[in-house]
């Protein structure tokens, strides 16, 4: 099983983001390094949900915002390793919509269930496979680590 290693502060931040946007879905990117076991996530970046027509059960990130997030990641020597979003009053399991709209093979998709405004379960799924035809979500374990201060330059961090 793949492991998503994520800084404890980032884990807390993505869960808090889900509470902040409740009853709408939150979304954002996870930045880090790829390891043999899976992604090691050092930073998260909040993104706007462009699905204002149905924000309670849909999310979408503007491609231009993604372009800018990727530029920022490169400056920091990081890569986009995955994405996160919330499921307001819905389990932390991927949905058919999540699956059909998932195209970042080899990346992690973290989902936090937010029940009545309170973050409950957070799960992560690795988008395995190499093509649209053989892609699949695989549940991965989440391990937290304490961020090393030097990895997050003070004063200019986008870490949430």
């Amino acid at each position, binding site marked *: 099983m793949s492991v998503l290693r994520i800084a404890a502060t980032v884990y807390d931040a993505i869960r808090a983001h889900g509470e902040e946007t409740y009853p709408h879905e939150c979304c954002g990117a996870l930045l880090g390094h790829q390891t043999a076991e899976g992604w090691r996530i050092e930073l998260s970046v909040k993104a706007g949900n462009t699905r204002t027509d149905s924000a309670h059960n849909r999310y*979408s990130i503007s491609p*231009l915002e993604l372009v800018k997030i990727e530029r920022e990641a490169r400056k920091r020597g990081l890569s986009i390793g995955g994405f996160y979003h919330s499921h307001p009053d819905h389990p932390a399991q991927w949905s058919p919509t999540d699956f059909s709209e*998932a195209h*970042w093979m080899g990346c992690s998709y973290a989902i936090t269930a937010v029940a009545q405004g309170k973050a409950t379960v957070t799960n992560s799924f690795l988008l395995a496979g190499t*093509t649209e035809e053989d892609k699949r979500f695989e549940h991965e374990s989440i391990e937290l680590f304490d961020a090393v201060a030097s990895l997050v330059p003070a004063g200019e961090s986008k870490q949430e």
Partner: protein
Amino acid sequence: MTIFIPTPLRQFAAGKDTLEVNAATVAGALDELTQAFPDLRKHLFSGEGKLRAFVNVYLNDEDVRYLPEKEATAVKAGDTLSIIPSIAGGC
């Protein structure tokens, strides 16, 4: 110009995250990219040779689909071409 290769496609580009090309247009740049890394072609283009619907290509900050000349748009040294698969979903 520089082409930025997104995380999911680096496995088909010898692990590289960028490629420098000397192309005249966006289409020419993408052609150089897929000539350098042929395995990328099926991930970027449909069987009809069109960019897949979920693949966004940005010339600097502009979505190529909305540029007047689209993929025939001229490029110059210093430009960047970002390939960004879409992100969406929901419960």
